[in-house]
C-alpha cells in the first residue's frame, strides 16, 4: 500500500509554474517546469497532463500548493494544504541538506533569504519595493542584449575584468549598461558587472544585516545562472550549493508539507483527479463590486459553468461561495 502513495506539489509563481510528483519515500519521480505566461489555469492543466503520464496507476494521496498563485492553484486542483513560499522552500531545503543555515531564493519577481538555525527558520526577508535582480529583470536584459538567457551566466564567467554597473535600481542598472556598451566595454565584462551588481543589491536590500552562514543553498529559477552563483561566491567568499532540484524546490516543499499533514491527521485527499482537472473548462472573470466604497476587485472562477470560487472582497459577500465549493465539484 505504501508503495502506491504519491504526493503532488504545485508552485505557481509569477514567471514559472512548477510541478513535482513525489513518492512515499520523498523521492521526486517527475518534475515539470513551465512558464506561467500570465495564464495560470492553463498552465496548471498542462502541468498535470504531463504529470499524469507518469502516475502509472498509483494514487495521489495529498496535494500541496505554494507560490503567489497558491490560492488559485488550490481552487483548481483541490489542494490539501496551501502554504507560503518561505515555509515551502525552507522545508525542502532542510530535507536536501539537513545542516543548511542559509537559503537564497531568487525567483521571477521575488527574492528571499531564509535563515535557518538548528533546523528551524529563525529569520527571513523578502524584497520590499524593488524587484531589481530578480529573474524577470535578467530575462529582460537577456532579451535586450539578444542572448539566450541560458547562455547569460556562462558568458559572465568568461569575463576577467570588473566593470562596475549601478545596482541600486533596475532602471539605473539598465542605463548604466547601455552607457558601458556605447563606450565599447566588452560584452562579457558588462554581463559579469551586472551579475555582481545584482548580488550587491540582494546583499544590501534583501539580506541586509542578516548573518549568512554556510551551508548556503541557492535555489529558484535564477540559480541556473552560473554568473550570479559565481558573483555570490565572489562576494561572500564562500561556497554556494545549487541543489539538483533548485528550480522546483517550492513545489517540493509543498508536496512534503502535504505528506506531513496527511500522515499526521490521516486525512484523505481533496484532489479532484487528473481527468476532472485536465478536461474541465475553467474560466475566470473579474469585476469591481459596487456594493460599497471599498470597490473590491472580485475574481470569479468557474468550472464547467458552475462557480467554483470567488475572492477579493473584504466583506465576504462574494467569497461565501467557497463554503459549498466542494459539493459542486466532482471528486
Amino acid at each position: 500500500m505504501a508503495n502506491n502513495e504519491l504526493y503532488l506539489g504545485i508552485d505557481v509563481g509569477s514567471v514559472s509554474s512548477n510541478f513535482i510528483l513525489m513518492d512515499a519515500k520523498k523521492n521526486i519521480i517527475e518534475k515539470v517546469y513551465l512558464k506561467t505566461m500570465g495564464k495560470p489555469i492553463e498552465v496548471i492543466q498542462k502541468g498535470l497532463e504531463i504529470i499524469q503520464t507518469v502516475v502509472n496507476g498509483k494514487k495521489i494521496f495529498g496535494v500541496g500548493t505554494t507560490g503567489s498563485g497558491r490560492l488559485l492553484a488550490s481552487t483548481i486542483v483541490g489542494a490539501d494544504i496551501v502554504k507560503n513560499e518561505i515555509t515551502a522552500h525552507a522545508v525542502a531545503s532542510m530535507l536536501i541538506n539537513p545542516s543548511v543555515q542559509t537559503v537564497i531564493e531568487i525567483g521571477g519577481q521575488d527574492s528571499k533569504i531564509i535563515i535557518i538555525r538548528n533546523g528551524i527558520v529563525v529569520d527571513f526577508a523578502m524584497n520590499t519595493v524593488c524587484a531589481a535582480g530578480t529573474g524577470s529583470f535578467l530575462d529582460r536584459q537577456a532579451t535586450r542584449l539578444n542572448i539566450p538567457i541560458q547562455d547569460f551566466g556562462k558568458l559572465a564567467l568568461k569575463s576577467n575584468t570588473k566593470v562596475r554597473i549601478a545596482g541600486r535600481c533596475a532602471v539605473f542598472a539598465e542605463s548604466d549598461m547601455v552607457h558601458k556598451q556605447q563606450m565599447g566595454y566588452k560584452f562579457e565584462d558588462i554581463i559579469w558587472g551586472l551579475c555582481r551588481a545584482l548580488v550587491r543589491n540582494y546583499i544590501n536590500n534583501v539580506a541586509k544585516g542578516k548573518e549568512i552562514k554556510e551551508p548556503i543553498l541557492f535555489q529558484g529559477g535564477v540559480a541556473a545562472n552560473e554568473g550570479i552563483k559565481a558573483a555570490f561566491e565572489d562576494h561572500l567568499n564562500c561556497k554556494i550549493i545549487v541543489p539538483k532540484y533548485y528550480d522546483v524546490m517550492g513545489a517540493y516543499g509543498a508536496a512534503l508539507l502535504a505528506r506531513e499533514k496527511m500522515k499526521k491527521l490521516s486525512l484523505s485527499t481533496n484532489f479532484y483527479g487528473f481527468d476532472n482537472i485536465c478536461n474541465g473548462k475553467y474560466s475566470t472573470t473579474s469585476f469591481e463590486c459596487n456594493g460599497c466604497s471599498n470597490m473590491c476587485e472580485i475574481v470569479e472562477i468557474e468550472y464547467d459553468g458552475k462557480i467554483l470560487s470567488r475572492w477579493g472582497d473584504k466583506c465576504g459577500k462574494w467569497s461565501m461561495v467557497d463554503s459549498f465549493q466542494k459539493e459542486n465539484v466532482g471528486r
Partner: protein
Amino acid sequence: MQKTVGIPRALLYYNYYPLWKTFFEELGCSVILSEKTSKEIMNRGIEVTVDDVCLPIKIYHGHIRNLLMKDLDYIFIPRIVSIYKKEYICPKFSGLPDMIRCNINELPTIISPIIDWSKSRRELTKVIFTVGSIFTSNPYKIWSAYKKGINQLKIYKLLLKQGFMPEDAINILVNKKDLLTPDFNKGKYTVLLLGHSYNIYDNFINMNIVQKLRKMECNVITPEQLPTEKIEKEVEKLPKKIFWSMSKKLVGNYLHYIKTSEIQGIIYLVSFGCGPDSLIGELVWKWANKNGQLPFMFVTLDEHTGETGFNTRLEAFVDMIERRVNI
C-alpha cells in the same frame, strides 16, 4: 441652528477622537465623521496630493474630501506641533492645515488650533477657549466641555490598554455599552505589533493585519497597551533623548517587551517613505538583529491593494513562530 463639525477618520483620530467629539458635542455641535478608509477614499486622496508624501497623509486628504460631500459648517484640522515637552511629532502634522488648504478647494471654515506644548502647556487654556468661543461665549460651558472630553479620552485609553481596537473602543464609548472583558486574547502566540496608530488601527492601510493575526491564533499587543510610565522608564536609559513622541512610544514598547516572555514575535509596520521610522525603525531593527532571540519583521505599506505578498509574509512569520515554539 446646530452647527456641524467634520472630523476626518484618519491620523490622530485614533488617538484623540473621543476628546474631540465630546468637546464639540458638549458645545452644542453635531460631529460628522468621515467614512471608514476605503479604496475610494484612498484614490480621492492620491488625486490631490504630491507623490512623495506617505500614504497616511494621502488618505487624510481622501477623508477630507469625503467629508466635503456632507453638509458642514466647520472642519477640524488641528495643527499639532508638539504634545510633550521638548518633543515633537512628524512635521507633516504641523503642516497639515496648510497642505489641505493648498490641495483641496472649497473648504468650509477650518478650525485649526496650534497645539505646541514643546515649551510648556501654558497655552492649553487659551487654545481651549479660542476654539470653544466659536460656539459659545460661556466660559464655564467651554471648560466643562473640555473636562468631559478629557474624561472620555481617559476611558478610551483604558479600553485600548485592555486590547480593544479603537473602532471597538469608540463603539463602546459612544453606544455606552457595558465594559465587556475582551474575548480575543485566546491565541497560542502573542505578537507585538509596532507602528503608528494610524497604520496599525486603520484596517484598510494595514490590510486587516490584526484580524489576520488573530485568525492565525496570535494575540496582538499594540503600543497603546503599555502605560506611559513604563515607556518613560525604558527610554530614560538611552544615551540620547528621542524627541519624536510617537517613535519614543515604539522604542519604549520594544525595550519593555523584549525583556519579558510575553511575546513570541515582533512585527513593525512602516509606511513607505516615513521619515521618523527610517531612523527609529532602523534602530529597533538593529537591536532586534543583535538580540536575535525573537522573530522580527518589517512590513512596508503603501498604496497597493494586492494582498498576496503581504499574506505570504504574515503566514511565513507565524509559521516561523509556530515551528520555533514547538521544537
